């Protein structure tokens, strides 16, 4: 009993420091949970690289949920992470082998309900790879401006200086134009798909 409550406290603390992006918390998550997940992926025919990929994805899910303050754990953090990792690995495995493994639903996992988290994550991953393709094709200066603003969190002022606009207002107008172009490419440009398919 005592042991249990201890776990809950440290899990909570860990999650809130993770939400703040504390690198110590990430280090602790790595050292506490990676070995178990590596072992599990090994057992299910995966390599070290597979295990680490799966672990990165699982922690990303945890981080995003923690950041959005959207994580209500009904179990220990380790159980949650292992369940996420297992599902992700089985999904990846069935994709690789083009054959489906039905994911084992035992009571424990039904209580955790991670399917939605995983589906949302996979959708995001899909969007990000689409986004990367769009960025490849959108060209300069849009590529640079959008990345600087939305991914590197630079201020409009700095962006104006970096990209040679007379004032932040002009840079902002340009940014909206770029975003609009990106949106069109992302959502309804059929040629984008074809081009990329040819590339592959």
């Amino acid at each position, binding site marked *: 009993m005592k042991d249990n409550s201890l776990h809950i406290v440290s899990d909570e603390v860990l999650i809130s420091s993770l939400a703040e992006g504390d690198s110590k918390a990430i280090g602790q998550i790595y050292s506490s949970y990676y070995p178990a997940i590596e072992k599990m992926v090994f057992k*299910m025919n995966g390599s070290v690289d597979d295990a680490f990929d799966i672990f990165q994805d699982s922690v990303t899910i945890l*981080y995003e949920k923690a950041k959005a303050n959207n994580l209500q754990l009904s179990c220990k953090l380790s159980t949650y992470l292992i369940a996420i990792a297992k599902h992700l690995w089985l999904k990846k495995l069935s994709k690789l082998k083009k054959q489906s493994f039905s994911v084992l639903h035992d009571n424990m996992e039904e209580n955790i309900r991670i399917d939605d988290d995983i589906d949302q994550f996979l959708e995001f991953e899909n969007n990000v790879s689409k986004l990367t393709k769009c960025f490849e094709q959108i060209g300069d200066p849009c590529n640079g401006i959008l990345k600087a603003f939305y*991914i590197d969190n630079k201020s409009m002022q700095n962006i104006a200086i970096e990209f040679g606009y007379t004032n932040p207002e002009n840079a902002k107008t340009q940014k909206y134009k770029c*975003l609009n172009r990106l949106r069109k490419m992302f959502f309804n440009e059929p040629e984008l798909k074809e081009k990329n398919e040819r590339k592959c």
Partner: protein
Amino acid sequence: MNENANIYEQIEKYCLDLMDEKECYYFEQEIAKNPALAKSVHEYQILLHSFDHQQSRQFIHDSLSTFHHQHRSHTVVLFTQLKLHVNKYWRTASVAACVALIASVFTFITVRSIYKHDTKGVYETLRLVSKEINSIKKNQGDIKNEVGNLKKKSAAIPDYPSKYSGTGFALNNSGYLVTNLHVIDGFSKIFVFTNDNVGHPSEVVATDEINDLAILKINESDFSFHDKVPYSIRKSNPNIAQRIYSLGYPKNDIVYNEGYISSTTGFEGDSNRFQLELPSGPGVSGAPILDESGNVVGIISGKQSQTEGVTFAIKTQSLLSLCKTLPSDFESNGINTSEIKGQTRTQQVKKIQPYICVVKVYN
């Protein structure tokens, strides 16, 4: 153009939740009236989420990579990677030996051509070179021995007594077995003893903590049972009052027991298990429960401590779903049909016996 930019600015402000209440109210009304605007807003939201996600994943990937690389450079090779290690060792060792041999032959030829006329010199170098070759041979022998030892270490049965023992039964004839997780949990040296009393090193390939199940695989590429597994695994729930029997290893020899299903739920109503009236003792954990036609209907997992004769078993559904998580080299063709239906109990037991094994774990 400016007007356009203004709309985008508003959309972005709305998506990022930067509007005040009044502004937000009017904008939402606008969205409700204007489907084109609603579509734009929705698409912006997806884009902004994608940006966010890219940011988060990059942050986590980068931070974890740092820890991962620090960790990798410190750790000793894991036991599970032993095989890989042995392979690597061999390659390096043989390359090193070849290089050394070529070098010494080259030295021998060169030196001989230089001291062509000096017989004493030739004798000296000859002796030296032969010594050199001998030491290389010796080195190679050492390496061979070491690799051999490494291999043996993982395969030899320890000479000290085992820590726990339980029962396991075959799931197919190529070395997959099931037992209770509690029998092997936390141990890496696991040996399966077949009924000819030969121990086989094994590894865990799947576990189910909740249902206390573990699937083992015998780690020998040439291992197989003599024939197809004779029993099948029943998919449906067990029936109350059904007569059953079990085969397990509470001692060094196999022990037969019979009884009946006394309840279709387990301890305190646990619906993943069921209750048997069947004597059991330590060592029979993981033993199969069979019905009269030789179908496995459950796996023994424990007993009630106060009441003598009450045993609990895990239902086969849990086992079947665990089997589904196994990699594709697992063939379950053995467990779909019972070969022993309609035979007498003695005949059945005789056929089943070789497929029931002792599982022992060592520190």
